[in-house]
């Protein structure tokens, strides 16, 4: 018989090794899936994981894309990870991302066509504020009425999607183009455009913000009292209460930070790579970021690596769609499998497999 035995201390080795193992297993399982779809598995995996960076043919286009896709993932995942550490589950980042984008775009469209250096910073503030506000709904309902934050934050994603559609069709629609939904193209509005900072690299202000957030989160979690309280509340809630940590305050702080970061991500997207408020603007970054947070072990540096990897699958997925006619949804399956494998492998972190003789007692 095989049985699980709880480790006295979680294994550090497996904590770090598991994400890599999970990626490898996902590649194998993904290869099997592609073979089942009648595609060459090796070619598909190569196209998704290697060609976006190393191929001479696609590299020049897709290398800058890597940072463009990874930055929002990292930005959102950093915020989510802080909450997850404290056992506060904000899974509605997608909604906060949308509202942040709408707030940012709203500021830009209100000023249009005035020039001014202050417009973009105002949009940044508005974006963060929008995401923050949207996250405050589950936070306040949790602290005032003890309502489950998982369900509320998730349900608000659907509400945010409807607001996005309403804005694209109504209030924010481009008045100069009749008949088409969608706002003005912010990329054509100098003062509001989140342009590439260094040509050909994909680096825009969102990438800078992601970097700042990583450093900030790292410092907070390792050096600041708040980070200690967050970890304490997650690992030993009773001890945290005795130590005077207010659970309500933590809920507000964690949801507030993750909401603001998700809102920022949305704002940088709508003013740069996305370009305009459209019905199809939301692309699932808020959900993929959950995978990024787990794959990065809720650790800021790990999240950077995980964010780059999942950003890569977005681009590789597009390539595979183009070159091999692979369905776009297969990337979603890929991402889901990755999380499954990671969770499954993690039993090794906390438990040890033991072979025992005879039947289990």
């Amino acid at each position, binding site marked *: 018989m095989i049985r699980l035995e709880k480790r006295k201390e979680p294994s550090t080795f497996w904590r770090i090794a598991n994400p890599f193992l999970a990626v490898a297993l996902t590649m194998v399982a993904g290869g099997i899936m592609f073979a089942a779809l009648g595609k060459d598995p090796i070619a598909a995996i190569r196209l998704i994981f290697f060609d976006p960076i190393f191929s001479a043919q696609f590299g020049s286009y897709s290398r800058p894309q890597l940072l463009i896709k990874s930055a929002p993932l990292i930005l959102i995942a950093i915020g989510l990870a802080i909450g997850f550490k404290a056992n506060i589950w904000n899974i509605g980042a997608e909604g906060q991302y949308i509202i942040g984008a709408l707030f940012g775009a709203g500021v830009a469209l209100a000023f249009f066509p005035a020039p001014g250096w202050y417009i973009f910073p105002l949009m940044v503030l508005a974006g963060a504020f929008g995401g923050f506000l949207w996250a405050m709904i589950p936070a306040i309902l949790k602290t005032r009425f*003890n309502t489950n934050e998982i369900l509320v934050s998730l349900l608000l994603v659907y509400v945010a999607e409807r607001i996005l559609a309403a804005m694209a069709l109504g209030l924010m629609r481009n008045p100069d183009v009749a008949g088409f939904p969608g706002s003005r193209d912010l990329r054509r509005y100098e003062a509001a455009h989140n342009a590439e900072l260094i040509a050909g690299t994909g680096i825009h202000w969102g990438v800078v913000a992601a970097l700042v957030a990583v450093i900030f989160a790292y410092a907070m979690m390792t050096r600041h009292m708040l980070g200690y309280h967050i970890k304490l509340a997650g690992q030993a809630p009773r001890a945290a209460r005795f130590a005077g940590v207010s659970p309500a305050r933590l809920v507000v702080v964690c949801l507030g930070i993750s909401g603001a970061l998700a809102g920022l991500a949305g704002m940088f997207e709508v003013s740069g790579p996305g370009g305009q408020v459209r019905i199809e603007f939301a692309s699932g970054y808020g959900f993929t970021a959950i995978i990024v947070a787990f794959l990065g072990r809720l650790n800021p540096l790990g999240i950077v690596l995980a964010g780059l990897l999942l950003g890569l699958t977005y681009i590789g997925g597009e390539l595979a769609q183009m070159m091999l006619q692979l369905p776009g949804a297969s990337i979603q399956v890929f*991402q889901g499998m990755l*999380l499954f494998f990671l*969770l499954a492998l993690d039993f090794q972190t906390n438990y040890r497999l033991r072979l025992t003789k005879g039947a289990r007692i």
Partner: protein
Amino acid sequence: MILGSINPAVLMAALMVAATPILLAAIGELVVEKAGVLNLGVEGMMIMGACLGFIVAVNTGSPVLGFVGAACAGMALSLLFALLTQALMTNQVASGLALTLFGLGLTALLGQRYVGITPPRTPKLDLGPLSEIPFLGRALFSHDIVVYLTIALVAAVWWFLNYSRAGMILRAVGENHDAAHALGYHVRRVRVFAIMFGGACAGLGGAYLSLIRVPQWTEGMTVGAGWIALALVVFASWRPWRALAGAYLFGGVVVLQLNLQAAGVKIPVEYLSMSPYLITIFVLVLISSGKARGSLNAPGSLNRPFHASD
């Protein structure tokens, strides 16, 4: 003048249909949570049922086989959840989310070639003279069999949880798994069965959407129905009949909202279609806040991992 154009009998009939998929998913999840497990993957299992049920029904031409396939698909996905949380002791919240993300992706892939197809029709149950009764006949007795079976399932779950030995064991496992284990009950086995039941129910709920309610397959067609079902369990304070009442209340809101859209009210469609989610949140707040104290009824071991050697 707008409300006047809505026929109450038709409204009643439509709300029963609108309530059935979430009621099916909710009654399954209720049993799962009563066993002490929080499976947040309802949305994923529902969409699996919707997709696989649709594929089976289209290929065999039989809606019945479609529902069977849907139940199996939901159950298969739930077994994955059971493997993760019961054998490998993973975090239930994260595993449930993984189930939903995976289910949404996999169905988008599997269902690709089925977009725009009409599934075989599920006939209305012939209730003879009952459906001839004025008003009530149209409102209550002119549905497909699944609507009635769902009500029967609610009754069965209610009886099972309150009056059967197995149901009491399941509740004991959910209230205090250490005590149940000490009494010699197989905590894990009970939970795996409960999870499978929840998966099958969610799959059936999904199939009801794609085969009867809509009836069509589109990517991500459950649009949060699974999450609403999860909220419904909380709203029902883990009581089967309250889940039924809640689902019909919710169905009423959905149908009213659709009718207002059709009647051409001056509010944009996007705002009207928000209402089911907003009302779900509102009801969650009501039930979890001070006076109602419904959440106090939550199973004691809900979302706590169980390992015999701990």
